[in-house]
């Protein structure tokens, strides 16, 4: 089997047995990026020299065995809205084309600490605002299974890099589905962890009360390993949760008696028939393993989208305020005074970002605040209660990740509602702060379909357990996609 198709555990074995060195492995992936990425533009920056230095340090670590862990020597890609000391972090914006952070995000520091190899920075919609990378100043990253389709967004660079085997693991960020939607569209695994589980320090903010960094990989175990590495209390992030004991591995064992809830609202008419069938196939497999399926209702879900838009855009308008050309953001030379300079600078932002700033600014205006922002917060509170109630009836929720497989590049722009439909499955986990995991559950035509599991806050283990059961039971794995072949599972 090609190295690109190996999971982290297999790469670990090769590294530990000295069948390959970290430098050789890094070179392999760098070559693959050089070969494939011109077609995908998954990477905004490939940090070749730093990567080789890190790989060589990892080889040292492996030689002495000191401080070596599951990820030592394993290449990882990082979404380009996560700060990397000395490596430019553009957020796919012209405004930050020259922004080189002077500090590492906590997640990056943690990866460096265990000796993972940072390959580069991946493409996204500008400031993570979008669902297709159409909003990237660095071009669109097409779907690896069919380049006429989008790869989702905003973490599509990370999802595509993983799906094509340009890197075994990648970090994304998820504000309303930005890890899960592209992971589902690309046929890979992605986790939006519990809010506060992973430090946000160094994540360039879009909507801070919703943003969360998480892993994307080619198996449940792979994302488990990356999640375990980046999770944990961080004194630099005031919204960070207290330290939890790190799990040694994914809990295995019987799923008998586990109650799996199917929210009626997420299996409605807007769902593509084929998607529903494939997600139901997962449900049947879980039932066969002894899970108890429960159909339930989460009435608050019908307000999830407007609530998300109100809160995310309001926060976004504030998050974006600092790019005024004074310290951050490429300063526009035009403008006769400070205000003129700031105004000219902000013209550099893309349409979607500007749209969200305008709407968010409007929502927060003193005449609108009570009607929009305050109400949205009330719905958010209700939604948390609604989900808490649901989790008294079941242990986790199963749903599709998106309503349809990846849409074509042209069609997406046409119908904003279609776009909204894909988001309505994912935003609830951000609004309620709970963890959500997406895994591929089949193909519709030749495009992947994702299933989503949600669990109460802090219950990531339950998600890993169920997802890895399904993976083992079906013994199926996706091939590395290269943009042209027909997608299909193959038997492990």
């Amino acid at each position, binding site marked *: 089997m090609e190295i690109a198709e190996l999971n982290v555990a297999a790469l670990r074995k090769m590294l530990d047995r000295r069948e390959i060195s970290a430098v050789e492995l890094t070179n392999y992936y760098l070559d693959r990026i050089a070969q494939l990425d011109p077609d995908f533009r998954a990477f905004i920056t490939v940090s070749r020299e730093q990567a080789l230095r890190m790989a060589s340090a990892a080889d040292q670590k492996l030689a002495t065995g000191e401080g070596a862990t599951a990820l030592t020597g394993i290449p990882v890609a990082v979404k380009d809205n*996560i*700060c990397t000391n000395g490596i430019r*972090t553009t*957020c796919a914006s012209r405004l*930050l084309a020259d*922004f080189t*952070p*002077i*500090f590492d*995000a906590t997640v990056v520091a943690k990866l460096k600490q265990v000796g993972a190899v940072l390959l580069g920075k991946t493409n996204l919609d500008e400031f993570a605002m979008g669902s297709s990378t159409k909003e990237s100043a660095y071009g669109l990253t097409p779907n690896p299974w069919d380049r006429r389709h989008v790869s989702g967004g905003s973490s599509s660079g990370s999802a595509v890099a993983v799906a094509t085997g340009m890197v075994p693991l990648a970090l994304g960020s998820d504000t309303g589905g930005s890890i899960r939607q592209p992971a589902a569209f690309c046929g890979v695994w992605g986790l939006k962890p519990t809010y506060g589980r992973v430090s*946000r*320090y*160094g*994540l*360039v*903010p879009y*909507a*801070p*009360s919703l943003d969360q960094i998480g892993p994307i990989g080619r198996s449940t175990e792979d994302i488990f390993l990356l999640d375990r590495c980046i999770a944990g209390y961080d*004194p*630099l*992030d*005031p*919204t960070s949760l207290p330290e939890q004991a790190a799990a040694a591995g994914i809990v295995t064992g019987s799923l008998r008696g586990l109650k799996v809830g199917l929210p009626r609202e997420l299996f409605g008419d807007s769902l593509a028939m084929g998607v529903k069938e494939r997600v139901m196939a997962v449900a049947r497999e879980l039932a066969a393993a002894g899970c108890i399926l429960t159909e339930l209702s989460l009435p608050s879900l019908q307000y999830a989208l407007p609530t998300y838009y109100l809160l995310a855009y*309001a*926060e976004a*308008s*504030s998050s*974006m*305020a*600092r*790019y*005024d050309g*004074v*310290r*951050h953001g490429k300063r526009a030379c035009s403008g006769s005074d*400070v*205000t003129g300079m*700031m105004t000219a600078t902000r013209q550099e932002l893309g349409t979607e970002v500007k749209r969200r700033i305008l709407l968010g*600014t409007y929502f*927060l*205006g*003193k005449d609108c*605040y009570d009607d929009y*922002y305050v109400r949205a917060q009330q719905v958010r509170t209700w939604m948390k209660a609604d989900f808490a109630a649901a989790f008294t009836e079941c242990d986790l929720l199963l749903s599709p990740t998106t309503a349809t497989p990846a849409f074509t590049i042209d069609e997406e722009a046409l119908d904003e509602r279609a776009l909204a439909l894909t988001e309505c499955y994912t935003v609830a986990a951000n609004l309620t702060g709970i963890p959500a995991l997406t895994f591929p559950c089949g193909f519709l035509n030749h495009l992947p379909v994702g299933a989503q599991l949600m669990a109460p806050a802090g219950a990531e283990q339950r998600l890993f357990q169920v997802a890895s059961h399904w993976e083992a039971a079906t013994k199926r794995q996706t091939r590395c996609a290269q943009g042209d072949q027909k997608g299909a599972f193959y038997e492990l």
Partner: protein
Amino acid sequence: MNYETVIGLEVHVQLKTKSKLWCGCATTFGAAPNSQVCPVCLGLPGSLPVLNQKAVELGVRTGLALNCTIAVCCRFDRKQYFYPDLPKGYQITQFHQPLGRGGWVEVPFAAGQRRVGITEIHLEEEAGRTAHFPPEADNPGYSLVDYNRSGLPLLEIVTAPELRSPEEARTMLETLKVLLEELEVTDGKMEEGSLRCDANLSVHRPGEPLGKRVELKNLNSFRAMEAALAFEAGRQGVLLTNGAPLDREEARTWNEAKRKTVFMRFKEQATDYRYFPEPDLPPVSIDGQWVERLAAGLPELPEARRGRYLREFRLPADDALLLSKNKAAAVFFEAVLGFYNGEAKTVSNWMLGDVTRLLKEEKIGFTDLKFGPEDLAALLSFLDRNEISGKIAKIVLAEMFQTGTPPAAIIHARGLFQINDPQAIKALVLETLAANGEAVRAYKSGKEKAVAFLVGDVMRKSKGRVNPELLDRILKFELAVDEIKDIGLD
């Protein structure tokens, strides 16, 4: 026509913490520009604020001292506006749920003591400092920003609009400054900006509703504040008298050079700050037991101290006020009492009289004294035991003040002990009477004033050491005896 003036203050207090409100950067005043900065206080993308617990503690202490209700849970909000020295494009402050509300402070106004309400206190971050350099021949002008100040912890104290004159506003601010220094929550240096004040002022005709308020900025000293408020009250009064409508709220700034307030903007033009809860900072729960412990640990504040001085030491009202509002004086006063068995009033007389005069001459305070409270106590004890006279005591005090030498050493070295021995005094008196026949005759012919000359002569000879009371008695006795001799009854 008479107008009533209504004033409320917004006082910004820089809290005395070692590090800034959200990061570990130092708070030292006067450091080289941009030498005390980090990703957090520069607002670099991806940085996050972490609340400085000490700032909350100082805020709660202040709130307690101002009799505020401390919030069980407070939170931070973003106040959004664009300015080059505001690195995040918003200021983190408290708008919806401040740290404390509904307090009051007793203020000793000239017209009598009165309670002034405290509407709220809240924590917020300081912005950077912008310096503008106007165009010159060889450059088109530029601005520089120093972010050392960015993220310093501020406590804003908002008073109720209950002050009725510029003088009252000044007394209020002075009272607050003393209180804050007493609490040791701030340096309170207006010249370094660690204490700043904005004021809202309106005037109205008696019996009519309140006028539209004008916000006054840039009141950087007590004098500037009082002058600006006086100017503004006068300006609005003239406008009202002339029938001009005062129907728009506006902001004005004090121009020190022109000695007048200058229009800045109408309030309706003011930015909509679009406040919303700061998502990066979770709500802050304030533990009631912690607050109780802080309350128990509060120092005695001037107002309580003043009451105690009246009760315990029976000081006159003025003495009690003057001593209690100056912490250094109060500490010194009570320390003297620890060494001294006499009347508290004696100590207060000397401290507020001769000692204060000497301090004022040198422009220093009680903490700068070269002698200690035990020395003043010793001096007053010498006086009480009649070992020195009041005049001598003043001479000794002056030397103590200059050199810090203990009074006993000065008195011994200079032989200043009072002469209390009647025989010794009699000898001096007889000597004087013998040498000043003219004065004696004058006295006998009814010129009472001649006694003063004779007393002065004895004092000169004894270098002021003779016990004045004994001298008076012995002198008059000897004069009388002399007279009896004269009429030959002996």
